């Protein structure tokens, strides 16, 4: 009898596994794990049906010509070539990047200012509720409300006309103003979420760090720019990634606010362009190729943001 077999025999008698032997999983742990699967099943099924399957379908369709009704035919990279040389795709790309470049910094900047202002307010909850209302309101409803506000006889245009003695601007019919209108709605509707996130971030900053800075003679401005803002940078970084991705996917606001991404395609975004190609022109292959290009663009921009992380994001020691 070898040493090891003795060990195993001992283990069998004592109920303690020998060193190196595989441990039998406890029954309660197995049961727990199974229940875990049950509870995550709805999410996993949802992800599979609504994310994974469409993603694979888009990947396949990007290399095919298909109108949704007749049999598809394979066209290799033609759809990508078509899109990359399509002036409308270029226009959509420029508009989308403009929306992102305008709304992300302004939106996040405003959110930081509001969060700082609310931090010491006793009636903070009330204001938070007010700022957060647009976030939980359907984007369709938000766009419809703003559509009324942007009318030539709406309050915004009439106020501008009265204040500056100019003709009332028709925001949604003027190619120069329509995209600005989209940016305004986007900033307004996302402000509340960023304020809540930043407020949580500000309250997470260790009081001892603030106290130490005060003892060292830091004033309110220095305290904000040298202590609080740098310590808030991880939260700002997270929000900027989310906001950038979200602005690259701008669709619903444009879809409701202006007709046909008008005027003259001034508000055509990439996602609207994809929708128009697929459901307007029934070119599902080209639309899928455009959506793959959007995925690549999103990944590249996110990678660039992560590249900047090292330079601009500061973590409180011991916090990471």
């Amino acid at each position, binding site marked *: 009898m070898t040493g090891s077999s003795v060990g195993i025999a001992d283990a069998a008698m004592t109920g303690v596994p020998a060193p190196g032997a595989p441990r039998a999983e406890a029954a309660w742990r197995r049961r727990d794990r199974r229940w875990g699967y049950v509870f995550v099943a*709805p999410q996993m*099924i949802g992800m599979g049906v609504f994310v994974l399957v469409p993603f694979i379908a888009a990947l396949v369709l990007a290399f095919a010509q298909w109108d*949704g009704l007749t049999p598809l035919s394979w066209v290799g990279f033609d759809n990508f070539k078509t899109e990359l040389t399509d002036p409308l795709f270029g226009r959509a790309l420029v508009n989308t990047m403009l929306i992102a470049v305008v709304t992300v910094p302004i939106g996040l900047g405003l959110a930081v200012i509001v969060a700082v202002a609310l931090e010491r307010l006793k009636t903070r909850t009330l204001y938070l509720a007010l700022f957060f209302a647009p976030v939980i309101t359907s984007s369709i409803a938000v766009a419809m409300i703003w559509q009324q506000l942007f*009318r*030539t006889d709406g309050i915004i245009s009439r106020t501008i006309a009265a204040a500056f003695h100019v003709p009332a601007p028709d925001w949604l019919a003027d190619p120069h103003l329509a995209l600005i209108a989209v940016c305004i709605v986007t900033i307004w509707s996302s402000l509340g979420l960023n304020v809540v996130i930043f407020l949580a971030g500000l309250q997470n900053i260790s009081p001892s760090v603030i106290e130490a800075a005060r003892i060292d003679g830091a004033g309110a401005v220095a305290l904000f720019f040298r202590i609080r803002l740098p310590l808030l940078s991880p939260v700002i970084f997270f929000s900027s990634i989310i906001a950038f991705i979200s602005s690259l996917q701008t669709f619903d606001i444009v879809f409701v606010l202006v007709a046909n991404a008008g005027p003259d395609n001034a508000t055509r975004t990439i996602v609207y362009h994809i929708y128009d190609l697929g459901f*307007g022109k*029934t070119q599902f292959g080209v639309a899928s190729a455009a959506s793959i290009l959007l995925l690549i663009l999103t990944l590249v921009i996110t990678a660039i943001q992560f590249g900047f992380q090292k330079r601009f994001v500061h973590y409180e020691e011991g916090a990471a």
Partner: protein
Amino acid sequence: MLRSRKVLTIATTVTAVTALSLGLGACSGGGGNGGSDGQQTVVWSTWGTPQELTRYKEFDAQFMKDHPNIKVVLQPVADYGDYHTKLLTELASGTAPDVFYIGDDQIGKFVNSNVLMPLNELMSSKDSKTKPDDFAQGLLGAAEKDDKILAEPNDSNPDALWYDKVALKKAGITEDPATLASEGKWTTQKYLEMNDKLHAAGLTGSMFWNYWSTHWSWISSQGGKAFDDNGDFVANTDPTSVAAMDTFGKYFQDKTFVVADTLPSGAGADSVFVTHKAGFFIQGRYTIGTVKSAGDPQNYDVAPWPTPDGKAAPTGVAVSYLAINDKTKVKDAAFTFWTNFLSKDGQTFRLKGSGNAVPSIKGADSVVLDGYPDHAQTLLDMRDLGFEDYATEAQVPGLSTDVSDIMLKLYQGKLTGQQALDQSAQLISSKTSGK
């Protein structure tokens, strides 16, 4: 242990079924079926305003009264812009209605995809209330392919020149366009003179919607040719068409003509027209609803498009089509509904009482001649003489819109008539090559 396993199995099954049914439930819908009691259900789909949908429901109720063995279910989509997207998705997933409307700018796509039931045989059968020859032949457009009729027009809307007598009077115009037309004196020169006077009086001359009927009607009425008999685009090589579009463009550029689509929100074409700020508004019979709701319909009448010599010329007639799903499980019931809906009686029922369109079938014209407007006969004449969107354009989804985008640049002064037509020719050629 066993009990726990049972619970686990049940929970897993319920979860999976719930998730799938929630997910797939959103895609449910689709055509009808034979019921266990022998009653067949026909599902049909259309877009429309609440008033139009109410009229359709009334038709359904009457139809079911007359055909107790058929149950009709209407699946409405409020917005025309969303309608075809939904229909396409339903057709692709095999859940489309049995009978459905199709817009004239979309019909070619559906015809080419072999999803519509050929109707020639059914229309010629003894049960048919709609023989092929009963319809206004100019309205079939792209709904016919290789001698197969795949849809028929529900009704029609000749794009006519509705005019405001009050606005004309304000501009010092004493002649009546409809009277001039009936005398054969409704010339392009007369029409443009009236518009000049309206513009000089600070009023809008004419308001046009930017779509196929506007540009092709203008070319056709001025003696030009947009497409030849082979379906090839020829307007850019036809001097008459180029000159016509140059003139047309100039009138938009100096704001005498206005693109109705671009009017400011809150001050749209309808409100401009009913407040007597525009002379002419070019659209369909549904204008009756607009002017009647404004309270002084007696101040409005209708005229055809002007021509160089005053003789009527073919102009655009907007239609929508009714088709039967080739995969319907209730073919006979679907056709019964289809033929009743489009029949003389069906169209009369739907269009009576200042309805929103002109019948597309013989024998129902009396609904238009109910006393309003004074020259309602003009609408019938325009329908009989008019044309549907050219098949070449209608067969490519989105092409009609893209051409309109080019025309908009002409109206904005960014292109000349020749450039706009050249760009249109290039676009049409690139989109239709190989088709």
